[in-house]
């Protein structure tokens, strides 16, 4: 079957891709800048075609617990929100991670803290990558930099989530959610009929009962479980790192940026190169697992790395850990919902790093 070309907003692409990926259920609550996802699904009414359930929940807390319930039945379920709503979901997310349930969570990030702004930001990096809720756990975190990737990562996110029985998150932002680009959509996939062995579907006499829980009162058993999680995360780190490189071969300076900031930096690379400055870009596509090995290798070749983020400097901590002191690492970014622009990034490189 052929792919279909559409011009869509990032948010719409997520919704359409979820239907096409054969998702079984979507649960969400309106919040700017991602309400188009729920709106698109309600208009598309996939329950009439693929049988996908769509429900507007009374809150993000309810929505993520609906995801818990659906995922525990072995279904492909997702929820989407933006920063304040994702904060509310954290309790549910840690329970999902603790119960080792696969699901997809999309965060179309806006500026914070608190109610903050509705404009794009990347200030939820720590929350997405370092945990967010309580306890030792990780999400698989994918960072789309285009509308195409917004669509593609829905399928990829589900695949990884089911492969590892782990929640996956798409960490996007208001710019990617709201902008329109061309997107090639995969053909409609049938909703899966296979049921994972661990799913709660009603106990037949042929198997032991399935219990979905994150509770273990015995600390020894809990520690064994924690170790099992660590082994899983190590496997993910080994196998699932994804990134893109731009002009890194002869680069003296390296931008490290994801999502919208990476798009801005792509242009910054062009502008700087036109001025004879040898700069490249490494764009992490997975933020967890992080492309640490590759950054460490590049640290042998470049003079300086600059973590460009729409935040006060969050991802820079992973860059620092990756290069482990081999090269200096700087941060450049705007906050509060302001998206940096290509000229500004080059200007900062010239005045603060090359000149300073």
């Amino acid at each position: 079957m052929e792919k279909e070309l559409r011009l869509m907003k990032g948010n719409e692409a997520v919704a359409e891709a979820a239907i096409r990926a054969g998702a079984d259920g979507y649960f969400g609550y309106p919040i700017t800048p991602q309400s188009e996802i729920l709106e698109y699904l309600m208009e598309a009414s996939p329950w009439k075609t693929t049988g996908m359930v769509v429900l507007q929940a009374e809150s993000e807390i309810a929505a993520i617990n609906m995801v818990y319930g659906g995922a525990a039945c072995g279904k492909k379920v997702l929820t989407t929100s933006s920063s304040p709503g994702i904060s509310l979901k954290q309790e549910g997310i840690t329970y999902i991670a603790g119960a080792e349930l696969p699901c997809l969570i999309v965060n179309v990030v806006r500026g914070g803290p608190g109610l903050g702004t509705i404009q794009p930001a990347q200030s939820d990096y720590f929350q997405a990558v370092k945990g967010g809720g309580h306890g030792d756990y990780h999400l698989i975190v994918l960072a789309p930099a285009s509308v195409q990737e917004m669509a593609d990562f829905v399928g990829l996110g589900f695949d990884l989530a089911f492969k590892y029985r782990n929640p996956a998150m798409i960490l996007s932002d208001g710019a990617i959610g709201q902008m329109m680009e061309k997107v090639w959509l995969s053909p409609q996939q049938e909703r899966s009929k296979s049921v994972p062995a661990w799913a709660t579907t009603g106990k037949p006499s042929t198997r032991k009962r399935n219990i979905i829980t994150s509770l273990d009162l015995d600390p020894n058993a809990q520690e064994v479980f924690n170790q099992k999680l660590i082994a899983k995360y190590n496997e993910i780190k080994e196998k699932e790192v994804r990134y893109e490189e731009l002009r890194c071969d002869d680069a003296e300076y390296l931008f490290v940026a994801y999502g919208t900031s990476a798009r801005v930096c792509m242009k910054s690379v062009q502008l700087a190169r036109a001025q004879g400055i040898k700069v490249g870009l490494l764009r992490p596509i997975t933020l967890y697992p992080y492309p640490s090995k590759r950054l460490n290798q590049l640290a042998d070749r470049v003079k300086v790395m600059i973590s460009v983020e729409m935040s006060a400097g969050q991802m820079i901590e992973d860059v620092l850990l990756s290069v482990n002191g081999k090269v200096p690492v700087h941060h450049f970014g705007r906050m509060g919902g302001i998206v940096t622009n290509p000229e500004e990034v080059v200007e900062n490189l010239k005045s603060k790093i090359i000149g300073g």
Partner: protein
Amino acid sequence: MTEEIIIAGFGGQGVLSMGKIMAYSGVMQDMEVSWMPSYGPEMRGGTANVIVIISSERISSPIIKHFDTGIILNQQSLDKFESSVKPGGVLIYDSNGITRHPERKDITIYRVDAAEEAGKMNSPKTFNMIVLGGFLKVKPIIKMENVIKGLKKSLPERYHNLIPMNEKALQKGLEIVKKV
């Protein structure tokens, strides 16, 4: 070829939908496109703007500060974006309601009095199509047939009866745009 455009005016002037038609037209011509709107409560009667990029190559940043073409539809936007047009670039504006006209000498300035013309044609809704016609005269980067295809794509089926009227408006824009 890469054309970086900003369209700015009041919410309700059809700024975003004009950008959308441009983007769809670009798709019809097999180009890469991006459409990055301003969003939020400012849309309630406030200003609205959209950055449209049409290119034969992969588009790097959808968010940029300087533009090949500025299409400016009110005074606030003129004040804000006149300086954002690249030297040697183009500024197209509707003089309706403008009290301070553009002053830059290093860009080419065009006027398309679309509001007045839409009034004359008795179809205020086609205002943005007249402006688009003006743009296409100055920057014929998309073939008219692809613009019509783009228009069809961006309009819901039930409004397709309005296409001839919009074509007329586009044509009007081509005629009335003039260099200042």
